[in-house]
């Protein structure tokens, strides 16, 4: 019969003792961007609701979305969205059991960071 052992262990992920490296940075960025995108969703849905409601309400929402704050928020949203997009594709690749060796993982991580910046610039140019 297995006994339950009570041992005081450090809580995972125990960040203090790790040197920052690409897979770690890109992993935490995936979480930060994914959760931060709720702000983008709130803003876009608010703007949609305003468009569906009335001229005066839309003027307020449109004013916020086209102000410097709106431009900054939407640019960061696109950057976060593209980063999370690429990191999500990488996650699916990892889930298939591929690309898990360190050199490949570091290359994929850099590809996520550089790719998200490139896609953001392209989005700003095209849209």
């Amino acid at each position: 019969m297995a006994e339950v052992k009570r041992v005081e262990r450090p809580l995972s992920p125990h960040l203090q003792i790790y040197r920052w490296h690409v897979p770690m940075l890109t992993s935490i960025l995936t979480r930060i961007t994914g959760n931060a995108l709720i702000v983008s969703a709130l803003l876009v849905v608010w703007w949609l609701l305003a468009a569906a409601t009335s001229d005066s309400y839309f003027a307020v929402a449109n004013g916020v979305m086209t102000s410097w704050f709106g431009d900054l928020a939407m640019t960061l949203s696109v950057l976060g969205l593209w980063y999370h997009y690429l990191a999500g594709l990488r996650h699916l690749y990892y889930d298939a059991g591929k690309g898990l060796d360190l050199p490949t993982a570091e290359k994929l991580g850099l590809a996520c960071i550089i790719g998200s910046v490139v896609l953001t610039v392209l989005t700003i140019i095209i849209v």
Partner: protein
Amino acid sequence: MRYLTARKRAEGKGAAGTGTHHHWHMQVSAVALAFMVPTFIYIIGSSLGQGREAVMATFARPLPAILTALVLVVGMQHFAKGAQIMIEDYARGSAKKGFIMLAIGVSWAIAATGLYALAKMAL
């Protein structure tokens, strides 16, 4: 000493309280979003900054309306389950339960609000 096997004690004690369904749901919604999000960015990006008439005309068309609705519903469920993972890492006990409920509630509220706005513009 309880007469339970190690397996019996471990069952259902995973981080999510359930098995692999959560992970599978994330994979399915991730692939769905991967197909939809580029067009979604284009639709929202090109409508932002336009006048109300133009925005309403855009979302009265089937493709922008249906795609935006799908991204909202699938995306918000993807968010709720993703946020749950984060909450399970950093919160314990009742706080964990409360935050997960809040994340799920906020996600449905945003999706429902978006669907209401889309329906009003499209119909």
